[in-house]
């Protein structure tokens, strides 16, 4: 037993960020090593938590409590259920990959790493925090650094003014990095406001004595209250999960963000949203969830299909990946909406699968951009000749994206579709499967256009494959895709233990509504 394991896990990146304040700017290697150590400590502890989480006991483990404001019932209550354990492992993988992927970041690297570490501390915090108030705090800590990270280190774009709101586009600098940063932050903050209202409502409904979710889960909220506040939590957290139509921050934000930030944001931050919907919305307000499930599922299906078509229509590589995230997060929300064991297993597993897959994608896009200084797919072609390693990893990520067996994506989608059919919505399953096919169309088209065929043109002919540290993130995340795909049991057992228990609690309520 490691004492204060979860606290150390959450605090390590934060402490490292403070240490970086004291490191002189010119000591670049030290900056990187401090960041990498913090990432490795957190990742190592995550794996340790997942490995020593007692499957037979289930429930919440590694309980730690630190009083914060006792008079209001606010305390930092850290504990991990199976879901947390699985998502900690994901976050650990992504942050280690992210630190490695930004190794060559030169401009203001120290501030960059500090913000990255603060952000990931917030992510770890959300996954293990059982106190709603502190959870909200961590959530904001995870979301806000994005504004600065994109605003300073982001890349510029430009959108041609067209469409019914042309005058708006002429007025705003749509596509620029400040625009992307501002849009992302504002949209997510509006979501946060809704969440905060719901949290305070639940707190006062339950007597105003505790923010502890485990205690709140035992309180039976009035069904009418649940039906009122569930959609606020769904859309509030859902904005971060890219729920349609509040997903539009995602393509611009991901496209503008620097590599490691895109990796973290699509890889883990979007999961915070979906996790919030499930952990706060569905577990605390089961009757609200049951009432709203058809709508949540229907919107998720829109996400899947609409996101996939959106990705097909893009020519900028980062936009393709960003829209594919919108589509794949739809699979997570669909799994959540099924309210079944298999669907929930699939939803959480899809968070892990999509996290490593999209992390790998963004790392690769970053590498390609770093070499070619373009993300414009039509300008590429024949890159398989000059960067065979990058081509192989890109193909691997694509295969996981289209849910090929042997990759993590397959297991997640299979479970979610099974859950959808079980929940009495065959249409969801069919539409989801169609989404997987559309994904196959656009990812293989991208692979063909970038890596196959004639080329590369003269301008790119001398470029090479990934080098040294650059392999780090690729190998780490690529291996994760294959390991989770071929042998999902270790992670899926953790998820299953928690889903089973939570769905069992939900089951009598589902039966009451839908015998």
């Amino acid at each position: 037993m490691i004492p204060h394991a979860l606290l150390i896990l959450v605090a390590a990146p934060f402490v490292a960020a403070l240490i970086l304040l004291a490191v002189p700017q010119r000591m670049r290697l030290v900056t990187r090593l401090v960041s990498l150590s913090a990432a490795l400590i957190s990742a190592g502890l995550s794996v340790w938590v997942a490995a020593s989480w007692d499957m037979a006991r289930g429930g919440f483990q590694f309980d730690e409590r630190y009083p914060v404001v006792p008079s209001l019932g606010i305390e930092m209550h850290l504990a991990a259920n199976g879901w947390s354990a699985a998502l900690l492992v994901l976050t650990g993988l992504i942050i280690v990959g992210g630190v490695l992927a930004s190794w060559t970041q030169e401009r203001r690297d120290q501030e960059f790493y500090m913000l990255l570490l603060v952000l990931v501390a917030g992510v770890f915090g959300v996954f293990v925090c059982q106190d709603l108030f502190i959870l909200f705090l961590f959530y904001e800590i995870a979301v806000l650094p994005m504004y600065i990270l994109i605003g300073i280190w982001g890349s510029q774009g430009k959108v041609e003014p067209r469409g019914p709101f042309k005058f708006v586009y002429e007025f705003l600098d749509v596509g620029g990095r400040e625009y992307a940063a501002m849009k992302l932050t504002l949209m997510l903050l509006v979501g946060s406001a809704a969440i905060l209202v719901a949290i305070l409502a639940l707190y006062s409904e339950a007597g105003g004595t505790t923010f502890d979710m485990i205690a709140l889960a035992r309180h039976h909220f009035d069904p009418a209250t649940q039906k009122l506040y569930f959609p606020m939590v769904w859309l509030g957290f859902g904005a971060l999960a890219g729920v349609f139509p509040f997903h539009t921050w995602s393509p611009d934000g991901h496209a503008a963000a620097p590599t490691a930030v895109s990796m973290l944001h699509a890889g883990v931050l979007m999961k915070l949203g979906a996790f919030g919907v499930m952990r706060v919305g569905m577990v605390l307000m089961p009757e609200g969830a049951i009432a709203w499930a058809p709508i949540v599922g229907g919107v998720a299906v829109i996400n899947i299909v609409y996101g996939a078509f959106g990705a097909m229509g893009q020519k900028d590589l980062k936009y393709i990946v960003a829209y594919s995230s919108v589509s794949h997060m739809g699979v997570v929300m669909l799994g959540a909406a099924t309210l079944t064991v298999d669907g929930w297993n699939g939803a959480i597993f899809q968070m892990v699968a999509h996290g490593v897959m999209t992390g790998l994608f963004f790392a690769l896009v970053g590498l390609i951009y770093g070499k070619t200084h373009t993300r414009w797919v039509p300008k590429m072609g024949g890159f398989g000749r000059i960067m065979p390693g990058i081509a192989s990893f890109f193909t691997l990520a694509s295969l996981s994206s289209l849910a090929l067996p042997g990759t993590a994506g397959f297991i997640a989608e299979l479970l979610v579709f099974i859950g959808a059919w079980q929940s009495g919505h065959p249409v969801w399953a069919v539409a989801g499967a169609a989404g997987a096919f559309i994904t196959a169309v656009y990812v293989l088209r991208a692979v063909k256009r970038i890596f196959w065929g004639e080329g590369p043109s003269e301008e790119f002919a001398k470029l090479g494959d990934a080098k040294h540290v650059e392999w780090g993130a690729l190998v780490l995340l690529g291996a994760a895709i294959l390991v989770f795909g071929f042998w999902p049991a270790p992670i899926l057992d953790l998820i299953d233990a928690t889903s089973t228990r939570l769905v069992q609690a939900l089951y009598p309520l589902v039966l009451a509504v839908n015998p």
Partner: protein
Amino acid sequence: MSLPIELALVALFTPAAMAVILALVPPLRRTGRPAAWLSVLAASISLGASVWLFADQLGHPSRDLLESVRWLPHAGAAMANVGLRIDGISAGMTLVVTLVAFCVQVFSLDYMRSEPAADLGRYFTYHSFFIFSMLLLVLAPNLLQLFFGWELVGLTSYLLIGFYFKKPSAAKAAVKAFWVTKLADTGLLLALVVLYTHTGGFEWTSHPGAEVATIITLLLFVAVMGKSAQFPLHVWLPDAMEGPTPVSALLHAATMVAAGVYLIVRTNPLFAQAEFTREVMVWIGSFTAVFAAVIACVQTDIKKVLAYSTCSQLGYMVAALGAGSVMGGYFHLTTHAFFKALLFLAAGSVIHAVHSNEMSDMGGLWKRMKLTTIVFVIGSVSLAGIPGLAGFFSKDLILEGMLESGHTVPWLMLLGAAFLTAFYMGRVLFTAFFGELSEKAKHAHEGGWEMQLPLVLLAIPALGAGYFASRFAGMWHLEYELHLNLEAGAASGLAILGFAVAYVMYGRGAPVATPAILRPIAKLAASGVLDRFYEGLYRVLGLKLAGAVGFFDRYVVDGLMNLSGYLALTAGQKLRRLQSGNVRDYVFVVAFAIFALSAFGILR
């Protein structure tokens, strides 16, 4: 663990380990020939284990072994297992797969000799991975694992068709193959979902009721149509010939495309419950058999002839399974694997010698390549179903099964296809191997021993496999009896007639002109109506819609978001005027407010 399980594990994991080693150790892979030899070594170990496994199974024909471990959890218990199921059916297919794969790898040693070392290593890595994927499918104890292998062989097919990825046509063909089969595989994925929802497992022996069984089998059949190239989802197979010829022999003739037929054989307990699906299979299979045979008659590329022939023969198998003749379908799969792999490798040997796929560049090869000609004749005659050779026995079984189940029209269609089969094979034989020596064939010569050995190895079963039909039937627990009756005679007679017509038309060294009655069909086939239809669908439903979604998302959904931001900003601009910093304005507002409020108070 018993001996058969251990043997199957060796057969399965030796190539897998080799693929992993070659993939993870690039310096080894890039050595080229050493990597190729390692892969061949793995294939031969796998073949050895399969032979032993098969022999062992022959000794215990009724043995049915199952060994599995938990793979996916559900509520603390097992949702799905992975493992090995060894019975006569899987043991037989394992042998077929490893034998053909071994032959093809050995053949490739010489055929691919001129490839750059790094590409050669990549080629053999894919081949090793293919054996693993295919055996994963063949030995699967349940439908989920079968699907797993099914998709992995699809992946290797994609990678191998696109082996010459720098060539735009190869890149296009690979992606097309993946798209079409993936679209069809959506059916299999949904079949898994329905099967699990209704039976709580992925077993094909379950009884979900006739209606559900029909839905499941129809969904399965959609996947079969994609993988086994049944009309109208066959369009990827002719294009797949862009891959190296040994790949066409292994994946796109002998084994991978037959996976669809194998799937039906395995899941036959489900298909047996679904009469409607089987009826659909009979008609689609028979139609594909005739349709593809007709198109094969007008092709001038030797590989394309063989590709359409494969479509046609798969149609036979599907129709047979639909008619309930499992033995016919499965046995034809086996014999077809041998003679079609043989034909493709022989064609490869020819292409290697004359550096062209066009039959007009061949001609008179008999004078230069005796061995290749002999084995090609064996393959053709076997395929055409001339009595005494392997193809005769299996085709006869299918035709008999058709008639027994009362499907007279499909039976006639298949008889017609038998005639056409002999005709188009005769056409290839007489134009490519006999007659005058063509310009390009003048310097043709046989390949090295690596190319000759597999030809001989495959010619043996193509000749003689038919005589073991009853042994196979015993292993598969199926009925088998050979009836030499009038119907069998009709098929053989038509086959001989087909060769005779081909001889009359092409026997005296005539060029590969298309016969006059078939010219309209040739025109139609060359225009690629179906391809253009799919391409149109892709453009409209895919790209146009995607463009529309892109616009809608950028300028309408996001436009509304931007509009709200714009309104907030402009409202702020307007309201800002209120706070002008001018004292007179403030005094004015205060005075006005006092006046207004007092007026309100008085009037109230």
